Every structure is written in C-alpha cells, then in structure tokens.
C-alpha cells in the first residue's frame, strides 16, 4: 500500500503575527485582536503571551479584561490579514498544485509526489514562509488530512512559551492509530465541545477508547455516525486534498448590539437577511434547494435548522416563509437571541420548467427582476417592499 504525504499548515496566531508586523512595538506584549469591550466584542485571536494568562479566542472582550486588566486591545486590520493570507497561499501553490485552503490561515497540501521526505518539505516550507512574509507557522505531517490536522493541533498545544510555536510534527505512516490512541477525544473531528462530556460519560476518554470499542456498541449509543467516528478514531481518512466545490451556500447573518426577544424585530431581521441572500443568489445566477436558519442564544449556544424543497428557489418570499417556519420550531416568545443567520445551500444553475397554470411564480419573478434592476442602477436602498416601508422609521 502506498501512503500519501499530507501536510496541514496553520499560521501561528495569525492576526496577532500580522499586527506585530504592522507594529513591531507589540512584540512580547500581552494583547488581543478583537472588538470593543463596551459593545459585544469578542477576542478573535490573542498573542501567545496573552494565552499564557488564560485568554482565548471567542472569549468576550469584557471577560478578557476582567481576567487580565492590562490586556491591550488591537482592532483588527482585516484587509491586511487577507493580503498576507494570499501571500502565504501563493507560496503553498508554488510548492504543489494540490492545495486546499480551509480558512484564512490554514491549508492542506498533498506532497505525495515530491521526492523529499515530509519533514524536510515541511521545514523548507516553514522557512520559506518565514523568509518571504516573516510569518510563523506550524505544520502537521501524516498520511491523511485528519491525522495531519490533529498533528498540527498537538504540536501547537504542546508549546508553552510566549513566542509562537513554529512547530512541526510528523506522524509516521502506519502509526496513525497509535498516535491518536492516547489523545483526549476532544481532539477528534466530529465530537465537538458539547459532545465531549457525553462521550466521557459513556466511558470514552481517549480516542483509543473509541477505536477499540467492539463493533455494534457505539452504534447503539450514537447511531449511524458510529462507523464514521470509529474510522476516524483509527486514523483512517481517504478524502482527497483538493478545492472543494466553488460555492456551497450563500448566507448572511446579523449579530445584535443587544440581545433581542421582540418577535417583530426578529421577523423583520430574518426577512431582510432572506432578501439579501436571495438577491445575492440572483446576481450570481444561482438558486438553491436547502434553506437554513442559524440562531445563537445569549450563552453562545448555536443551532441550525434546515429544510429542503424539490425545486430550487431564489425568491425572497419563498426563503423567508421557510425561515419563519424554521424559526417557530426553535424559538418561543420571550427567548432572547444574539445572532440570526439565513443560508441557502444545495445550489444549482439548472433551469427549471415554469408552469403555465400557476403563474404566481412568474409574477414574483418579474417583480424581483424589476426590483433588482432598480437596485443595480440606483442603489440597494432605492426600492423596498411595502412592508419594509411601514417598518422603517425613515
């Protein structure tokens, strides 16, 4: 059997590293990139010096300041992050065409066909990125994506200094299961923060515990997902490295300045989000079959609900009506909401046969075409539905 050589590369404290490049005085300072503590800002990322003091990303900035009163807050320069990210991705694409970018600061590389050893390629890549962009990164090497990513995480989390880890960790081919076995189950993809206590309760503390459960037992406990999870626990993953489909979904979301529980406002927000998503779909010549609602409660717990249609749509009202149905499955009056999101997925550019007897669809379509046309020529605020005019105090 031929093993693949997969690298997982992760830029260390990316936003902070970029901020340090922009402002060298930040070096060694306890600081965090994120929003203001007065409103609802959270920590996007923080320096390793801050991490040592217990600050972590997604922590509300207020909490972070309580914990470390001297914490310096830096407001993010997101355009710069994008710029540096592109520089790094260019270097990666120069190494191999088989690059899969998974976020602004993370990517997989398939270097199976390169003659050098994985560790040597990783070291050369780390140096080149350092030389050309001055950014630190950590790299995990394994025979598949799953193990390579976990290797990066382990390498980074075992670093306790206050610089950046710049770690490289290779899991030798054939030793995947052995490497994973002692690790806590939270490291495994697909379990999630909320899942960890449940798994521990069932008696699975390490990934090895999962891997060695006899067939059938895990199925009884968690259902269909068991076989996937057992494969992962054994370090098996045959997904190729490659560009995922161009666009999988189109979404818009809003975080409220203050948690809201007013039904009218919630519904109006969802209607506006639905209209935005539908407009973007139409502009790109797309329509979708799956409508998804995202809702986040004040304690950050986030839920999604979705439904699918046999026929794809890009109509504001169809999307909004479905979103309302989904909302009322999950939200009851009095519940406070922190964030709302609307997404349309299962996208297609395939044309559908219009009906000659049911012309409501065509009428709506003509109306939307006319509205989109006006929006494009005179700006998005130039035309609104009647219900928005009533709602709008302006």
């Amino acid at each position: 059997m031929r093993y693949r050589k997969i690298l997982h590369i992760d830029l260390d404290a990316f936003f902070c590293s970029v901020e340090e490049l922009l402002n060298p005085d930040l070096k060694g300072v306890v600081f965090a990139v994120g929003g203001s503590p007065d409103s609802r800002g959270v920590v996007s990322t923080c320096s390793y010096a801050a991490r040592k003091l217990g600050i972590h990303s997604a922590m509300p900035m207020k909490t972070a300041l309580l914990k470390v009163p001297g914490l310096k807050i830096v407001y993010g320069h997101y355009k710069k992050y994008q710029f540096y990210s592109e520089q790094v991705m260019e270097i990666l694409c120069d190494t191999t065409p088989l690059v899969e970018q998974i976020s602004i600061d993370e990517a997989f590389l398939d270097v199976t066909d390169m003659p050098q050893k994985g560790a040597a390629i990783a070291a050369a890549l780390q140096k080149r990125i350092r030389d050309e962009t001055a950014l630190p990164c950590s790299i995990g090497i394994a025979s598949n994506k799953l193990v390579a990513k976990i290797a990066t995480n382990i390498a980074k989390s075992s670093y306790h200094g206050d610089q950046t880890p710049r770690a490289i960790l290779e899991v030798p081919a054939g030793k995947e299961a052995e490497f994973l076995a002692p690790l806590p189950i939270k490291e495994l993809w697909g379990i999630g923060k909320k899942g960890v206590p449940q798994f521990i309760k069932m008696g699975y503390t390490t990934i090895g515990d999962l891997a060695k459960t006899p067939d059938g037992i895990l199925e009884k406990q968690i259902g269909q997902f068991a076989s996937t999870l057992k494969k992962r626990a054994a370090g098996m993953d045959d997904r190729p490295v490659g560009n995922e489909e161009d666009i999988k979904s189109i979404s818009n979301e809003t975080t409220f300045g203050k948690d809201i529980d007013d039904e009218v406002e919630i519904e109006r927000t969802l209607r506006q989000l639905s209209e935005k998503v539908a407009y973007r779909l139409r502009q790109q010549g797309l329509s979708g079959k799956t409508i998804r609602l995202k809702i986040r409660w004040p304690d950050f717990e986030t839920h999604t609900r979705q439904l699918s249609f046999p026929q794809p749509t890009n109509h504001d009202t169809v999307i909004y009506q479905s979103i309302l149905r989904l909302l009322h499955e999950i939200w009851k009056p009095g519940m406070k909401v922190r964030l709302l999101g609307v997404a349309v997925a299962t996208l297609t550019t395939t044309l559908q046969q219009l009906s000659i007897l049911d012309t409501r669809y065509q009428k709506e379509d003509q109306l939307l075409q006319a509205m989109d046309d006006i929006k494009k020529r005179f700006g998005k605020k130039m035309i609104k539905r009647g219900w928005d005019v009533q709602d709008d105090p302006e």
Partner: protein
Amino acid sequence: MKLSVSQPQLAHGLGIVTRAVSPRSTLPVLNNILLATDEGRLRLSATNLELGITKWIGAQIQEEGSITIPARIFSDLIGALPGNTVDLTLNTRTQTLNIHCGTSNFDIKGIDAQEFPPMPVPDLQNGVELNISDFKEMIQQVSFAASTDEARPVLQGVMMEIGNNEITLAATDGFRISVKKTSLSTPVSAPVKVIIPARSLSELARIATNGDETISMVVPEGRGQAIFHLKDAELVSQLIDGKFPDYNAIIPRSFKTNTTITTVEFQKACRQAEIIARESNNVIRMHIQPQEQGPGIVEFSTQSEERGSGEVVLEANIDGPELLIAFNVSYLLNVLDVISTPNTILATNADNTPGLIRPVGDESYLHVIMPMHLG
C-alpha cells in the same frame, strides 16, 4: 357457438381489442376478451371499465353463442397459428372453447359471457359525424400535451368542445397547451363539452385506419361516457369529471418577437441539441438575434457538465427585439413533430413568459409552451 374465421383477421382484431384489457384487474372476467356472434360477424370486446374496445370481423357462423376467453392466452395462441382458417367451437356445458387450425387443436377454459360488463349501444341518430383523417390529425396534434400525472386527472384528459359547426380539442399538462380547431361538415344538434382521457383518443387514432370513413361520436345524456362508432369497430370511453383550466385566458395574444423558422431545420437543430440536452434536464437555449441587414439568426445551444456542449445556428426571419430564452427540447420536438407546414412561427415576449408556436399559414392549430428558467 360454432364458427370459422381467418387467422390474420382474428389476430389483427385481437391486437386492437387487447389494448383495453387491464393487466392487473382483480375482476377475472376483465382479463378476458368477449367473443360473440353478432349478425353474421364475430364480435371481439375488451374493457377495463374506463376504456372499452369492440371490433367486428367477418365470420362463417354455424351456431350462435358467446364466451369470454383469457386475453393473453387467446391472443398469444392465435398469433402463433398458421395463416389459415380457424374453427372456434364452444362446449357450453364446460364453457371451454375449442380452437382448431390445420393440425393444431387447443381447448381453452373460459368464463360465462353473462359476467362480462355490457357495452353500451350508441344511438347513432344523435351522433356527431367526424372525418377520420381530420380527427386523427387533431388527436395527434393535441393529445401529447396532456399530462401523465395521475395526481391531476383533469389534465390527463383532452377538452373537446363542439358547437357552431366547429370542433375544438385542447390539452395541457401545466407546462404547455395544444389547441386545434376544425370545422364540421355536418351541423350538430346540441353543443358538446366533455373531457376525454387522452389515452382513449390515442387508442381511437390507432384503430381508425381507413381515412375515407367517418366516425360517429355519441355522448349519451348523463352516462359520463363517449362512444365512437366506426364501420367495424367501436370505442367507449369514460369521461373525466372536473373543471378543465380556462386555457383561452392563458394563451398570450400579443408578442414582442416573432421568429419564423423552416420547420425541418428547426426540428433538426432540436434533434441535434437534444443529444446533449437530455443529459442536463433537457434544457436548450435559443438566442434569437435579429440583424440590421438580411435575415436574423437563432443560435441553439446546449450544455451538460458531464457530457459537453454544442451550438446550432439557423437563419430565421425575426421581427422584434433580441431574446435569450430556454425551453425543454423534448417539448419543442413534440410540437414540431405534428406541424406539417414548411415554416413555423415562434412568438415570444420574455424569457419567463409563455411562447407560442404555430404552423405558418394554418390558423387552426396553436401550441403554447412555457420556457425554462432559473428556479
């Protein structure tokens, strides 16, 4: 019952009536064909209670009588016999039919003819006379547009309206409409407005082979049936009860772009495009482009992510602005197959409103077709 018939005639007659046999009937007698002597001829009848077909063939009758015989066995057997005279003799005591032909001899068990549902006898005095070749053409031009969706029974039918010495057939499956009008040679006494299953009309078109004859159509009051009588055959169809869509209100009356294309060329372009289009939801795009000088052009394009793409360009007379519109290519082919004039007009307004297709120089037929559009 004792009679002789010619094997080819019997086989042909069985080929016609067996189309009304329901293959999955729970009533055993409906799996059978009725054989009955009838004024010097042999009558063959089959019915599935929605559609009944009777065919008369010439016979030498020695003894009157009737019996029903399992359709499948009987027609398979007759089809396998040599092309000679077939002698049929019924043993009334055992209800067994003896079939003798040359050196072949078979006995087939039947069911008493009394159990066979009676076929209505039409009162031909009140019939509407229809010319066979005209009526067959009408059926062919219209019935393909009917729906095959059992959830919408009304759309599985063809709307027939007779009045003012004119007969109109119309069908729609919700995506297209076909309408054909023809004048009647003899005036009708009372107007008719019924929905006939498209399947029944297609069977009628199949049976009516002799174009010189006429069909008499009778719709007996309150029976929910229509009877079509030919010289040696009869078809009875249940009517569909329900409200047919007001198709006249849907047919667009004015158009921005009129495109005249040679029918054969139009058909060829669609045939070619269909080979790719059938891989991707049958979508073909027509880019209708008028030109300053000379005739305009229509570019047919098709694309399938897996299979590839293609374009066919045709010259056309275009009156009106440019338009890019997409259609289901099989719908286009269906209608072009029933247009016999050399040129065809496609009249359109927008990429999401119905288009109209009709033969140039023949006002009696029109077809409305809804485009395909990003859903």
